[in-house]
């Protein structure tokens, strides 16, 4: 039974993937117009591979989290038709062919652990569940931290994430320092997929993943304690710091949309004439109309309320409900927020964490 298979280069891995393409939808990261995107394998040409390799090799998550593969920005629930006064509903059929997402970073895949806690508990979000079970995650591991990374602080193992099907290790990250690419199955789903790949000519067959080299465990990092932070937050509800942040905040949705653990959505109907669809799409608690009520009342009228709510959810409410802090330390907020507000700056403000 396959544990690890080795490809002598990224392109040979891709050739192998192409052979199994008919049974899977495979998505990989690359660059388009200089911006990191995930594209279906078919659209990835030879000259994209360089970019793809860069993304896999850099110890920083790709621009946009792979959350959207299991929890799309917008997806249709059901369709409906109206005949006179009778309505006809039909559930929107889900994609059957299994999906393979290559290139997620440990922090990204770990985030699914948290979303599971919300979506897979009763009542189960079947749309998420189906995708979750139908998706194979090939995680590109890190051998050190990027400029914005807080994975260690938030207890994410950047070398061996708990949630994953297959780990992707680049030769250059290892003691070998070669161009090879190693795929190591860490789940049953992963193993089955690797077997399929193994049959393909490109693979060099069985092997063991060489040891990673690099700043694998940061010594000076204290792992953040959810309980401690939760308690600190308890006393900060009326603190002026939220107003301070709010004064800088643009009120856009970048932090929530790029955060791999944020999972709020809105449900809408779109209909013309006698037919239409009900669909859900991401929503952001940073938007003023997120908490707007039918009567026009808004329980979180100001930016201050909203920004406070967001960080209380991450650092307090979620701990109470599920246990962990709702953050995997991917650092996307730090990277993308136009006003420089991030989980890091907040932790710093509330006096937690050395690095930040």
């Amino acid at each position, binding site marked *: 039974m396959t544990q690890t298979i080795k490809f002598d280069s990224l392109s040979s891995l891709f050739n192998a993937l192409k052979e199994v393409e008919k049974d899977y939808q495979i998505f990989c990261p690359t660059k388009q117009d200089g911006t990191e995107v995930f594209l279906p394998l078919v659209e990835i040409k030879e000259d994209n591979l360089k970019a793809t390799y860069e993304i896999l090799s850099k110890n920083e998550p790709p621009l946009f989290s792979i959350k959207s593969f299991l929890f799309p920005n917008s997806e*249709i629930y059901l*369709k409906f038709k109206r005949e006179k006064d009778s309505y006809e509903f039909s559930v929107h059929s889900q994609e059957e062919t299994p999906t393979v997402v290559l290139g997620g970073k440990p922090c990204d895949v770990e985030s699914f652990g948290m979303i599971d806690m919300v979506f897979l508990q009763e009542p189960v979000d079947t749309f998420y569940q189906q995708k979750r079970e139908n998706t194979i995650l090939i995680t590109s591991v890190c051998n050190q931290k990027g400029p914005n990374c807080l994975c260690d602080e938030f207890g994410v193992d950047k070398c061996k994430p708990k949630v994953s099907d297959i780990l992707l290790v680049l030769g250059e990250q290892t003691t070998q320092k070669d161009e090879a690419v190693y795929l190591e199955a860490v789940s049953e789903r992963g193993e089955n997929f690797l077997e399929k790949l193994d049959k393909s000519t490109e693979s060099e067959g069985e092997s063991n993943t060489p040891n990673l080299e690099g700043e694998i465990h940061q010594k000076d990092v204290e792992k953040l304690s959810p309980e401690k932070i939760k308690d600190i937050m308890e006393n900060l509800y009326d603190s002026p710091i939220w107003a301070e942040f709010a004064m800088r905040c643009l009120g856009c949705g970048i932090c929530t949309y790029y955060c791999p653990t944020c999972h709020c959505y809105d449900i809408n109907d*779109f209909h*013309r004439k006698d*037919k*239409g*669809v009900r*669909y859900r799409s991401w929503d952001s608690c940073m938007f003023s109309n997120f908490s707007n009520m039918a009567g026009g009342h808004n329980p979180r009228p100001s930016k201050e309320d909203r920004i406070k709510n967001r960080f209380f959810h991450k650092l307090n409410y979620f701990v109470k409900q599920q246990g962990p802090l709702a953050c995997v330390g991917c650092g996307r907020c730090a990277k993308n927020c136009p006003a420089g507000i991030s989980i890091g700056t907040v932790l710093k403000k509330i006096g937690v964490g050395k690095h930040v």
Partner: protein
Amino acid sequence: MMQQNFEPKIIAFCCNWCSYAGADLAGTGRLKYSENIRIVRVPCSSRVEVQMILRAFQNGADGVMVAGCHPGDCHYDTGNYHTRRRMVLLKSLVSFMGMDPERLLVKWISGNEAARFQETVDSFNDQLKKLGPSNKVRDQRCEI
């Protein structure tokens, strides 16, 4: 090439005082033109919001027409001057984004120009038949 079997969907925003009246006169004169046009009555072409035009395209219109009084003849003196500026801008933006500007027709048709109304509709209809269905700006969920 003309797609004969294809019947374009045209939504026309017509100024109540000129082009709408012109369409009425075309009726009174029994002038025949294509059935594909649906007229939305507005008090003045300047009332038309850009949002409405795009909405029409979203909903699957193959062509949108905005018709007002001839410059200088506006029932409200200056309305169509504003329409003119807005539409010039919208058209250029739309073409800059590659979204077939020729699907947006802006026309000055007075209340007496029944024939001009008829001719405008028919030639626009033919032009759209040549262009074929509009699928660049259409919200796909309309077909679901």
